[in-house]
């Protein structure tokens, strides 16, 4: 055991390794067939990694279905799907996919910060990008560009879906809110949409803390919340941070109701029954009572042994959207695809109403839903403890009522 080496060398080298390990270990998964190549990026590691894993399952299922039924224009789809890791790596990989892998266009993402950099790559290369799962308003606002179309609901729609439910339940006017906000573009956007909603509907924000995305321990924040004695605690966090917050909130047993403007079902499931409470927004849930949606859930569950999460659903419909667009335009050409989407063509998204991309901000216009937690003992299985609320906007309202009016949107193509 006698060795001769310098303590400093050991420390320096191990510090470098420990630093590198915080970046996460990238996971790589890729498709096999050839013909129409598609570049796909999604976070598979980090605080959004679990969502990205579901995203890949949904995408893969759609790819297999399309290829089995003869592909698009008689050509098979070949998707290269990789871990986006972080915004800088996402951009590098996107560029490589277009330049070296021969991808016709780009798809994917959940992390809003990575989506921004991929959008820049798409614009620089003048290539089509279907931005699937990132929800920051800024992507459809001041950061928008004409090469990118957005599938998931933007921040302000999520705030609206939950906010309306809170107004209805008398949990808004005159109430004091304490918010915890994820410290990156998505969280900032969500918080600003929330502030606007609170202001318009008589809610008061008495505290708003920015939380770094690598925080896994919320107890100091919970102690601060208790000192402030709010009426309602509100989460503007993302990914598995919401799960951790919910669990620790239940652990401390604070008496204030907790709600949030962002929660993905995988993160809700991870919290476990008995920990989650409150009202949250969602873009889709596997119990949605629409025949096409039920068929999808059935097939997915048969294939993977668990129900699909909202990111599995959204990737599935996104590839179907691209397949429809390519078939209709008989092309993978960016300009032709943009023209097709900008015509506001209708797409079946497995919901009661079809969706369409608005021509001036490229946002998919669709229904959203609030959801709440079922009373104890009413869940059929461990995935069923959430109860889906009525779709917003209601069946008799225009899908446009949820959107920021054109004159307030800062998007310039």
């Amino acid at each position, binding site marked *: *055991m*006698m*060795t*001769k*080496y*310098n*303590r400093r*060398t*050991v420390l320096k*080298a*191990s*510090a470098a*390794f*420990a*630093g590198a*390990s*915080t970046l*996460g*270990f990238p*996971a790589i998964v890729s498709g096999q067939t050839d013909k129409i190549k598609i570049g796909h990026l999604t976070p*598979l*590691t*980090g605080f959004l*990694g*679990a969502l*990205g*894993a*579901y995203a890949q399952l949904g995408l893969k299922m759609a790819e297999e279905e399309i290829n089995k039924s003869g592909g698009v224009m008689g050509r098979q789809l070949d998707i290269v799907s990789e871990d986006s890791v972080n915004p800088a790596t996402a951009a590098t990989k996107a560029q490589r996919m277009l330049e070296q892998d021969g991808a016709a266009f780009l798809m994917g993402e959940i992390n809003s910060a990575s989506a921004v950099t991929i959008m820049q790559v798409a614009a620089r290369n003048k290539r089509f990008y279907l931005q699937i799962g990132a929800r920051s308003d800024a992507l459809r606002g001041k950061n928008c560009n004409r090469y990118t179309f957005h599938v998931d609901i933007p921040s302000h729609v999520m705030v609206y879906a939950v906010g309306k439910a809170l107004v209805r339940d008398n949990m808004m006017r005159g109430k004091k809110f304490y918010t915890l906000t994820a*410290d990156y573009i998505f969280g900032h956007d969500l918080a600003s949409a929330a502030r606007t909603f609170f202001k318009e509907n008589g809610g008061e924000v008495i505290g708003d*803390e*920015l*939380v*770094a995305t*690598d*925080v*896994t*321990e919320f*107890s*100091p*924040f919970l*102690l*601060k919340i208790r*000192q402030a004695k709010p009426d309602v605690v509100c989460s503007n966090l993302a990914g*598995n941070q919401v*799960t*951790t917050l919910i*669990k*620790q909130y*239940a*652990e*401390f*047993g*604070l008496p204030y109701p907790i709600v949030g403007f962002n929660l993905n079902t*995988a993160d809700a*499931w*991870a919290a*476990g*029954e*008995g*920990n989650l409470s409150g009202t949250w927004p969602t873009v889709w849930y596997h119990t949605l009572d629409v025949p096409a949606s039920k068929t999808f859930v059935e097939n997915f569950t048969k294939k993977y042994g668990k129900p699909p999460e909202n990111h599995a659903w959204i990737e599935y419909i996104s590839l179907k959207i691209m397949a429809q667009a390519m078939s209709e335009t008989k092309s993978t050409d960016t300009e032709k695809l943009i023209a097709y989407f900008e015509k506001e063509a209708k797409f079946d998204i497995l919901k009661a109403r079809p969706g369409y991309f608005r021509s001036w901000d490229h946002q998919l216009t669709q229904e959203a839903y609030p959801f709440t937690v079922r009373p104890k003992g009413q869940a059929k299985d461990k995935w069923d403890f959430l109860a889906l609320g009525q779709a917003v906007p209601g069946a008799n309202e225009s899908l446009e009522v949820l959107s920021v009016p054109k004159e307030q949107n800062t998007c310039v193509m």
Partner: protein
Amino acid sequence: MQFVFLLEQIVNGLVLGGYYLLIALGLSLIFSVGGVVNLAHGAFYALGAYISVEITKLLGFGPAVVLSPIAVALLGILFERFLLRRFYAADPILSLLVTFGLAMIAEQLIRIIWGAAPLSVIMPAVFKGSVFIGDFLFSRYRLLLLAIVIAVLASIWLLLHKASFGRVVRAGIQKPDMVAALGIRLQPYMTAIVMLGVGMAALGGALFAPITIVHPAMGAEVLTVAFVVVVIGGLGSFWGVVISALLVGVVRGITIHFIPAAGEASMYVLMFLILLFRPRGLLGERIEKFET
């Protein structure tokens, strides 16, 4: 009023420090005796959490907290016998590479076996909620955590300072050649130290599973903090690591109280300041074998 709030944060920080300590102490021990910075330490923490999820399903939470560290400690024997042992005398870069590689393999294996989606352990209802002492609030579960950490710490201290086992280990840290000359083989002791170290990390994982989420990258997350704690405390020092872990926990709590956004940065600033004035860490011992 303000004082009570601050006191809450300090006590809470101490508990958090105790949890960091479970992971950092093993890291420090393995380095002091074997000269290996075990970058796979976080993986054992993650395994502890995952195994406790499985055992909780079968036998309940209590047995999981006991059995999961034992299972991981047994794995530690294989780890020491077939991997670490080859690198005690080698260039430290090699052991760093090997343990870093092992950490990556472990993370991907976890992803393959249990999936990327986070799992959860539901804690027994008795531990949910808080204890009030006047206006002073404390999480019941964390009190339990604190008690366990203190018990583990006391046992380790007794083992290292009052038992013959500890005398050999401490002599082995400073003068391995002399220990060998006395006819004592250090290898079984090294196996025991690794078992103890990774077992403690697994205990940390099992104890923290109910209040955080169990996910594949949890090991990589905790390793950074544990490493910072060891560096601040100083290598080879039991009390250095203890003080440093508590300090990191408390400083983080107080920082979040006053400047929430700087909470995660606080421990790095602390490390920077301490290394500026005490390059060897708070109570770092001079270990001759690490000097050229």
